[in-house]
Every structure is written in structure tokens, then in C-alpha cells.
């Protein structure tokens, strides 16, 4: 029996080895495999929150317009997509849109009613879509839903007009949301849209449609032959493979099982380049990290409606000293391997028409930092290496979200840099959910976090002093001049004036240093050389996939 068992085991192993070799040959002539780190939750454009979800959903559901990036000016240009023609009136208070001859994947014609219905859903509080409450340039009701009667005029089945409020500043971004089919969505109760099957079985008019969605494994899109976007030469299908472990994604890239992956770590770039089958493209200027400094005292201010300045960071000179004391260049060089650039203000250099080139990065200068602290009355009287003032030690906690190697590394470097000038810091690693909860409640002293920069540039949520409006101003920064600039940016102004205002904004922020701006981080994308026509720019890495072709 023993020898039978052994023979059987040996036979099974050999068969598996031989047959595995056979099944690994896959015909990759007509599809592309993109790696993702997590599964998506929905394909319904009403509820999409993550970039990965919109990457996929916007291949199925189209918006009236699409956007391109103009690298020479650092501006976004828009082009008609589901719309065939777009005609603004003289004072830009309305736009007449003619739709393309498009059909939903079930054969129904896309009409003006679908557009009006989509905006109705997006703005309806019962639906709770991601676009709820953002239609500031539309006529709206008290509950923030769009007043359809005033905002839309349906001219014909494929032509309609959008009417904006006279004092508004409408742009193409006000109506670039994906359009959904009225004849499908209208059958579902609005309160139940979030949990309905339509989230997983989309009916779109885009160049791709959903073939299969194997939860936690992969999502397969195939060409929608009914789409008005002609894609005869392009790839037949795109497979989004869910691979939560980063090392597994790299292994699969190296084995040729993946054609495309984002967020490649700098240390893996050379290994991938050696294979000679990948292009590594840097997507610049959209993500940055900063050392957050709570400008108010979290303990005192939390209990009352008054805001008490932070005993350390409420002082502009202290914040400047901290900026001088941190060797950001070393982090950029040693960890990011120069895949990024030093940050000066929240306007990235990619926005060429707005970026103020007269402002220079704050260089590492610990001696000047120490001089500033001494002038502010901090000194090490007892010789323990830590500065004191009025019997208070210069000591605070830096909180870092867990699971982010860059921020953990930065925290250690920052701790050492500050120690060298007499500032004691304790590092506290928090689970991300707890970290962000505390950050948004302004309960942290100092922290390392980052923001993704929106396009079009929207500075108000991050820098406006009123917390009801500046909900991302988690550092409680307050400067009336900045508030005035941000309010002016929302009025009707010409391009040059907008550029001047944003440059003025940068000068003030640079002078105030409300936080220590660390660096812009490049999103490194590995793209197989067999895929042609891939456009990777600040707008995205996965875009216009209907123009992707495979080389011979």
C-alpha cells in the first residue's frame, strides 16, 4: 500500500507539472491585462468613489465631453464625446448640446431624456450619489437637487440646452458626468439604486461593455460593437486583474501575465526595465505628501468654539524653522530615487500657466532653523538636547498612517532631523481609518499625509478658513488674504487674472508655510511595449483605451 501511495503521488506531481506548462500558453493577441490592488465596489457612475472604479466605469458609461491634457500649457482641453456639438452662448450662461448617434448596449437610442434624467439622479439627495451638492452653477432647489425646469431645455430627442445661473462660472467640468440609461434606471426606486443589480450589470453606450466580473478576481470588458466610437483596430478586451499583494503584481509583470500596472515602487523600476518589455512612465504632479502641523491647539480648541493657536505651530517662524530643518532632498533621493520633486506650494509645476517660478524650494538648513528657534526664545538650558521655553519642552507627536512605507521612512528621517536641532518627536503609527478620523477631527498635533490634487484646480476645500467650506483644511490654517483670493477665483474672471490670483496665492502660502510641503510623488506606471497609443498624463493612466492597439 505504501508503494502504491508513493507511485500515485509521484504520478500526480509529474502530471501537474507537465499539464501546467501546457495551460500557461495563452493567446494574448487581442487583450490586455491590467493589474489592480483591490476589487472595485460598483460600476454605477452614481456611486463611484475610487479612481480604479472610474477607470473602468468610464469605458462603459460615457460623459458628454472628454478631457485632454495640454503639456505645453499645463491646461486641460475638452472635446465632445457623447456630444457631437457643443455651442456656448455669448455670455456663457447656456450651452446647446447635440448628441452623437449613440445606442445603449441593449439597442435603445441615447437621447436628451437620458441626459436630463442622469443629472436629476446625480443631484437627488435620496440617491446619495458622489456628485450630490456640487452643482453650484445650476439652478437648484433648497435640497440642492437641480431644478430641471430651469436648468434644462429639451429641444429634440438628440438636442438640448443647459442653462446656468447668471452669476455662475460654468465650464465643461460642470457636465462631464457619465450619462446613464433612463429606461433602465427609472425602473429602480431611487433609494434602492445603491443596492440594485445595475451596479454589477451595467448597460452603457461606451466603447466597452462588461463581459464578466468575478469578485475579488478579475473584471473583463469586451468591445461594444454597437458603440458609435469606431474601434476596428483596437484591442478586443481588457481584463482588470485583482492582485492585492504588491510583490505578486511585480512577479506577474515580470512573468508577462500583466501588461499594465500603476504605483510601481522606485526600487522595482530598474528590474522591470532590464526585461526590456516595459516602458516605465511617470505620471507627475497629482499626489503630494506633507508634514501637517495643527495651527490650533487640538486639546483646548476642541472643547470650545474658540480657536487657540498651537503653542508650537501657531507661530509662523516656528513653521518656517521646521521647513528648514527637514532634509526633504534626502528622502526624495534615497527612498523615491528621485521619482518626484521637491514641493514648494500646493500648485504643481505641471500647471505651467499657474505655477510661480520665482519661488524656490526651501533648502535644508538646520543651522538657520536653530537660529530662528533661538530668536523665538527656545533654548536648551538643562543640556538634555531638547529645547525648552517657559518650562515647556519642544516635544510633540507625529502621527503616520500604517501601511505606507514612504511615510514611515519619512517620519524616521524627520524625527532624526528635528532631533538634531533640539526638537523631540514621538512617532505614532495609526491604523488608516483611525488616522483619518483623527485628522479630520483636528485631533492630531502633527502628521504625515498627502493629498491628490483635483483637476480642475480647486483650492478652497484645502485652504479656506471656514471649516464648513474648507473641510479639508485640517491644519486650521487661517489667512483672510487667502480667503479673499479663493472667493475671487469663484467669480467670473479672465484667464490672466486667474493666473495672477493663483500666483499671489502661492506667494502667501510660501511665506506662511502652514504645513511643511514635502514632495510631489510620481505615479510610476509600467506599460507593456506591445500596447500602442497609451496616453499617460496628469489626467490619468488608464484613459481612451479604445485607441489602444497591440503591436505585432
Amino acid at each position, binding site marked *: 500500500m505504501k508503494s502504491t501511495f508513493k507511485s500515485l503521488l509521484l504520478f500526480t506531481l509529474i502530471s501537474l507539472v507537465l*499539464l501546467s506548462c501546457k495551460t500557461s500558453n495563452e493567446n494574448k493577441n487581442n487583450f490586455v491585462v491590467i493589474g489592480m490592488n483591490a476589487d472595485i*465596489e460598483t460600476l454605477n457612475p452614481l456611486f463611484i468613489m475610487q479612481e480604479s472604479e472610474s477607470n473602468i466605469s468610464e469605458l462603459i458609461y460615457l460623459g458628454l465631453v472628454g478631457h485632454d491634457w495640454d503639456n505645453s500649457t499645463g491646461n486641460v482641453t475638452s472635446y465632445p464625446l457623447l456630444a457631437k456639438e457643443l455651442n456656448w452662448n455669448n455670455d456663457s450662461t447656456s450651452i446647446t448640446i447635440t448628441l452623437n448617434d449613440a445606442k445603449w448596449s441593449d439597442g435603445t437610442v441615447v437621447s436628451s431624456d437620458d441626459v436630463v434624467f442622469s443629472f436629476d439622479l446625480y443631484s437627488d439627495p435620496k440617491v446619495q450619489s458622489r456628485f*450630490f451638492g456640487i452643482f453650484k452653477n445650476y439652478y437648484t432647489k433648497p435640497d440642492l437637487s437641480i431644478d430641471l425646469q430651469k436648468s434644462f431645455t429639451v429641444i429634440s430627442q438628440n438636442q438640448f440646452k443647459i442653462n446656468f445661473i447668471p452669476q455662475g462660472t460654468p465650464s465643461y467640468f460642470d457636465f462631464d458626468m457619465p450619462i446613464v440609461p433612463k429606461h433602465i434606471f427609472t425602473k429602480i426606486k431611487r433609494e434602492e439604486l445603491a443596492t440594485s443589480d445595475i451596479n454589477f450589470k451595467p448597460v452603457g453606450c461606451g466603447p466597452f461593455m462588461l463581459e464578466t466580473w468575478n469578485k475579488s478576481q478579475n473584471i473583463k470588458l469586451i468591445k461594444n460593437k454597437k458603440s458609435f466610437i469606431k474601434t476596428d483596430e483596437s484591442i478586443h478586451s481588457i481584463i482588470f486583474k485583482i492582485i492585492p499583494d504588491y510583490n505578486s503584481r511585480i512577479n506577474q509583470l515580470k512573468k508577462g501575465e500583466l501588461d499594465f500596472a500603476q504605483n510601481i515602487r522606485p526600487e522595482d523600476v530598474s528590474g522591470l526595465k532590464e526585461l526590456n518589455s516595459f516602458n516605465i512612465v511617470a505620471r507627475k504632479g497629482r499626489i503630494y505628501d506633507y508634514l501637517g502641523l495643527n495651527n490650533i491647539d487640538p486639546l483646548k480648541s476642541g472643547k470650545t468654539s474658540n480657536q487657540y493657536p498651537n503653542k508650537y505651530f501657531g507661530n509662523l517662524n516656528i513653521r518656517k524653522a521646521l521647513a528648514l530643518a527637514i532634509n526633504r532632498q534626502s528622502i526624495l533621493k534615497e527612498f523615491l530615487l528621485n521619482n518626484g520633486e521637491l514641493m514648494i506650494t500646493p500648485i504643481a509645476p505641471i500647471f505651467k500657466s499657474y505655477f510661480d517660478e520665482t519661488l524656490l524650494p526651501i533648502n535644508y538648513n538646520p543651522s538657520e532653523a536653530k537660529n530662528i528657534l533661538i530668536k523665538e526664545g527656545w533654548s536648551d538650558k538643562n543640556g538634555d538636547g531638547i529645547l525648552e521655553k517657559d518650562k515647556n519642552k519642544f516635544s510633540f507627536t507625529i502621527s503616520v498612517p500604517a501601511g505606507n512605507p514612504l511615510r514611515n521612512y519619512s517620519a524616521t528621517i524627520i524625527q532624526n532631523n528635528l532631533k538634531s536641532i533640539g526638537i523631540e518627536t514621538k512617532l505614532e503609527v495609526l491604523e488608516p481609518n483611525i488616522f483619518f478620523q483623527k485628522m479630520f477631527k483636528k485631533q492630531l498635533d502633527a502628521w504625515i499625509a498627502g493629498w491628490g490634487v483635483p483637476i480642475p484646480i480647486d483650492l478652497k476645500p484645502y485652504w479656506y478658513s471656514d471649516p464648513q467650506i474648507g473641510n479639508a483644511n485640517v491644519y486650521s490654517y487661517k489667512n483672510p488674504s487667502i480667503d479673499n483670493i479663493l472667493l475671487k477665483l469663484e467669480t467670473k474672471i479672465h484667464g490672466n487674472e486667474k493666473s495672477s490670483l493663483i500666483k499671489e496665492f502661492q506667494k502667501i502660502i510660501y511665506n506662511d508655510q502652514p504645513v511643511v510641503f514635502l514632495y510631489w510623488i510620481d505615479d510610476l506606471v509600467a506599460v507593456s511595449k506591445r500596447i500602442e497609443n497609451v496616453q499617460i498624463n496628469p489626467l490619468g493612466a488608464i484613459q481612451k483605451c479604445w485607441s489602444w492597439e497591440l503591436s505585432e
Partner: protein
Amino acid sequence: MHKFSTILLKRIFTSLITLFLLAVLIFILLRISPGDPVQKFISPKLNPQLVEEIKKTFLLDKSIEEQFLVFLKNIFTGDFGISYNYRLPVTSVIADALKFTIPFASTCFIIQIIAALGLLFNIYKKRGSLLDRVINKVTLILYSFPSIIIALVLILLFALVLNIFPSADLVSINYSNLNPIEKIIDLISHLVLPVITLSLPGTIVFYSYLRHNIDIVYQQNFILFLQASGVEEKTIFKNHVLPNSIRPVISLLGNEFGVLLGGALITETIFSLPGMGRLTVNAILTRDYPLVMGCAIFSGVMILLANLVVDVYKTKTDGRIISVNL
């Protein structure tokens, strides 16, 4: 029989009480622990009012006492609610994950037993020999390796260097184009490395326990008597040593199976497998309260059920247990 059914009913009743207390404890722990289920809706890109509307939908605007009453009502009707992340009934989200976890866990469980017994059958005659001592040491060393190291070594060796098995996923991308035999082979080849990763620690534990018990049983007088009576060594091992050695390990087996059914996070993450482990941990990290409750209760049910089955088996096969319990 009457005595047995009394014990069985008692066990079922206490299991249900345990399950209820588990559910209540998890409810309380989730509500008092830091973190916010609506955190992902707090963003500069989203209107702050959206958060308030969503809180109402999730009943998070209600007091904890009101939420607890709703929870009690739902639990007795088997309704775990809607997952905040997936926007689907919790039962269907878990059912999806179980489609993979149940067969995978069962396979690993069976392999652990077969491998442990197979190794034992080959070693029992040579107990005390150099080979036996070497195997003991090697199993101890292997057991000290965390699963993640085992997984990475297997991937490096068999997937990257030798390119024999795939490094991740459940099936190939072109799975739907394969014929039925090829589909089976494809599935099996994808699961070889994850099954080894998950089965290895359990195999070592079973083998070690059994090996140790065998030594103890061999020292019993009745074994000496059988040997002196001239009974064949093989017969002594199969009919007397093994059954007496394995009985203490059965409780361990029951627990192990229950734990396997709860999911294996590390194995599932590294090999990109869609199981209960990943589902549960992701639910916890995102504070998906209904899904956490569902996963925790399911896991509890599996462990309690597995232990119940094992206890029933032991009670049925060992008459001493009934008299002790009475």
C-alpha cells in the same frame, strides 16, 4: 441513547448561547472601537451633506441602544443587513466568498490529515532512529516559519525560477475557453502552491501530536502484552496504537477545520484568492459593521459546529465520556 440525546441537546443549547454572546460582544466592540464606517465619504471632493445622508441610510445617526435593538431583531431573523462596501446583502457577499473558501479549506484539511498520516506510516517502524529525529527537527523548523515566508519561497522557487506553477490567482485568464479537463487541470495547478502554504503548518501540528501520542501509547502495558503474544507489528499499529493515539487529536482536527473555514488571510492575499479571510479583514479595516458581524458569526458557527461534531463523534465512540458528562 436517551443519555446521548440529552448531552447533544445540552451542547446545542450552550453553543447557541455562546453564539449569541459572541454576536453581542462583537457588536459592542465594533461600536466602541475607534474608526468610522463613513470615513471614505469624508473627502474634499464630496459634499459634506452627503455624509449625513449616508449615516441615516446606515442607521448610524441613531443611538447605540436603538442600533442594538435593530441588530437583535435582525439577528433572530437571520438578516445581517446590507454591506456598506458592497451594497449587497451580507449573506450573499459571504456566500460568494464561501464558494471558494469551503472547497479550499476542505481540500487543505484532507491533505493535512493524509500527509500527516502518510508520514507517520512511513516513520512509525523507525521511531527513535536518526531519520525520526531529523524529521522531528525539520518539522519544528518548518513550523517556525510564518506562512508568508513559506508562500514567498514557494512562489520564488516554483513560479519564478522553475516556472512550473502559477504565482497567483484562482484560474487562468483564458479559463472560460478551456475544455472541462483543461479547466480542472488549470484550477488544480493554480491551487498547488496555496494549498501547500496553508496545509503545511497543520500537517506538522497533526504529525507532531500523533507522533508524540504514539510514543505514549507504545509504552502502555497492553501494547507490551500484544507484542509478547506475537501479534504482528503492523496489526498492533493499525488496530491499537493508531486509534488510541488519534483520539486526543480529533478535538484539534475539529478546531482546525473550523478555523480554516473562517479564511486564511495571508494565503489569500499573496495568491490573490477570493476567500473569507480577505473579506473579513477588509470589512474590519473599512468598518463595514454588518459584514464584520456576518463574517464573525459565520466563523463562530463553523468553529462551534466543528467542535460539536467532534464531541458527538467522541461521545459515540467512547462510552466513558457519557458517564463522565452525567
